[in-house]
């Protein structure tokens, strides 16, 4: 029963990792941009939520109504104003520029909020849980997180494959020049993709921040979890990303169970194992 519990907790945490990964994989898929600052945007969203909850006295989950559109707007402006200029045949310029953004965001947050650990207060929700079987209890908050992750992945999947919006994303990803010939403004499409990515980041950041302490320096580790979930699941497959997040979450939970110091190590080992055995990921996108 103890092990069942461990695995269930790991699966639930995996949902959060999948959300980190979804935003990352989305922009890589649409514009071949590797966003090194992705983790720092997660932290930025958490701090934005902190400011909103403290100044307006809102519940953290209610603050999403403000934080999600705000992050999306930041994403669009950032893409149009800065990142579009770095895109081209070379993958290096966007990598360097987002690395620079990562440094700027971390230090900006450090300057404004100090290095103190913070947390969003969600009241009774934080500790609420129910027992599904003897010895296996599920926290309401982790479950909410997981459900949100599944909903986000499902919504992105539907958006990509069922709407004109998603069609534009896929077409631009396939062939940006021909996408222009059918009237798609690449710069705008990329802006929308980044807005969507940072909207997902906002949700993930706030859910992270009600469950765990955060400080300005935790971004890069979230980026790594996101990367690992993407690679384990297989690049370009959203449901695979969810599976990747779960594999990572479960591996970390098992590691932590064996020895509290092995949590991160176990996650990285699981990632390396997948990379060694199935480098294309567990569920690679099948392309005709």
């Amino acid at each position: 029963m103890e092990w069942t519990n461990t695995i269930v907790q790991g699966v639930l945490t995996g949902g959060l990792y999948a959300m980190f990964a979804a935003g990352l994989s989305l922009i890589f898929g649409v514009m071949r941009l590797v966003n090194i600052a992705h983790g720092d945007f997660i932290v930025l969203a958490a701090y934005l939520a902190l400011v909103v909850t403290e100044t307006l006295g809102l519940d953290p989950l209610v603050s999403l109504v403000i934080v999600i559109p705000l992050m999306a707007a930041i994403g669009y402006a950032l893409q149009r104003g800065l990142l579009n200029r770095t895109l081209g045949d070379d993958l290096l310029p966007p990598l360097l520029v987002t690395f620079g953004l990562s440094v700027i965001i971390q230090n900006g947050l450090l300057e404004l909020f100090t290095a103190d650990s913070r947390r969003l207060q969600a009241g009774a929700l934080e500790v609420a849980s129910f027992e599904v079987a003897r010895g296996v209890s599920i926290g309401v908050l982790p479950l909410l997180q997981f459900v949100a992750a599944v909903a986000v992945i499902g919504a992105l999947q539907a958006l990509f494959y069922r709407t004109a919006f998603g069609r534009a994303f896929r077409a631009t990803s396939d062939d940006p020049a021909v996408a222009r010939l059918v009237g798609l403004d690449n710069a705008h499409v990329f802006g929308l993709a980044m807005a969507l990515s940072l909207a997902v980041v906002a949700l993930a950041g706030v859910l992270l921040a009600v469950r765990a302490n955060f400080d300005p320096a935790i971004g890069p580790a979230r980026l790594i979890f996101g990367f690992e979930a993407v690679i384990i699941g297989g690049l370009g497959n959203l449901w695979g990303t969810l599976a990747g997040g779960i594999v990572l979450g479960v591996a970390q939970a098992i590691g932590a169970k064996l020895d509290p110091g092995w949590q991160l190590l176990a996650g990285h080992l699981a990632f390396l194992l997948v990379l060694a055995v199935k480098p294309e990921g567990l569920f690679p996108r099948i392309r005709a």
Partner: protein
Amino acid sequence: MPDPAGDALLDVRALDARYGDFQALFDVSISVGRREVVAIIGANGAGKSTLLKCVAGLMPARRDAIVFDGAPIGDLPAHRIVARGIALVPEGRRLFPSLSVEENLLIGGQLGRPGFWTLARIYELFPALAVRARLPSTALSGGEQQMAALGRALMANPTLLLCDEISLGLAPIVIRDIYARLPAIVAQGTSLVIVEQDIAQALAAAARVYCLQEGRVAFAGAARDATREAVAAAYFGT
């Protein structure tokens, strides 16, 4: 010879184009009238595709070097030019591989320009596509891919359709089949520019012809005046 000034749908005036240090077009002037079919022929590397890319906005040009429907459009980006009614069928078809056949057509019409062409009418023009609507575009034969690429461009309801090497890599019977549909397109008020290496096919379909040689117009005239000797002279220089 070229239309009287002011009446042409498309007027390319003294267009130069370059790729870095390499100049691909020198002082090229062509015009296309309303509902006219114009062929542009020439050897490999003569600048035919470059000319179409400039008109479609994929390559930058001087603002007044390209005048469409009375307005200078040389400096507009491609997505603004298609909104004005110029669609390009790119060389090599270039369908979107992760989109189905139908999605490829739908995205061609995503600007919502009003006009004759709708999904249903594209399927009437190319019944082979209707059968394969749900398949990924990569599952089509070469000829069907070319039909889909034409359909995608038509979905924008263009007043000027630019076709870059639509016969490339296709069997003669398939080429004839595709060329047989072009009059139905012109009948809806669309002008055509056909860039071809297959000279006989292009001359048969067009009213007027321009021959490019090393980035310059080497011959311009009515298609029926383009005798074998005239074309050979323009192709290879004399």
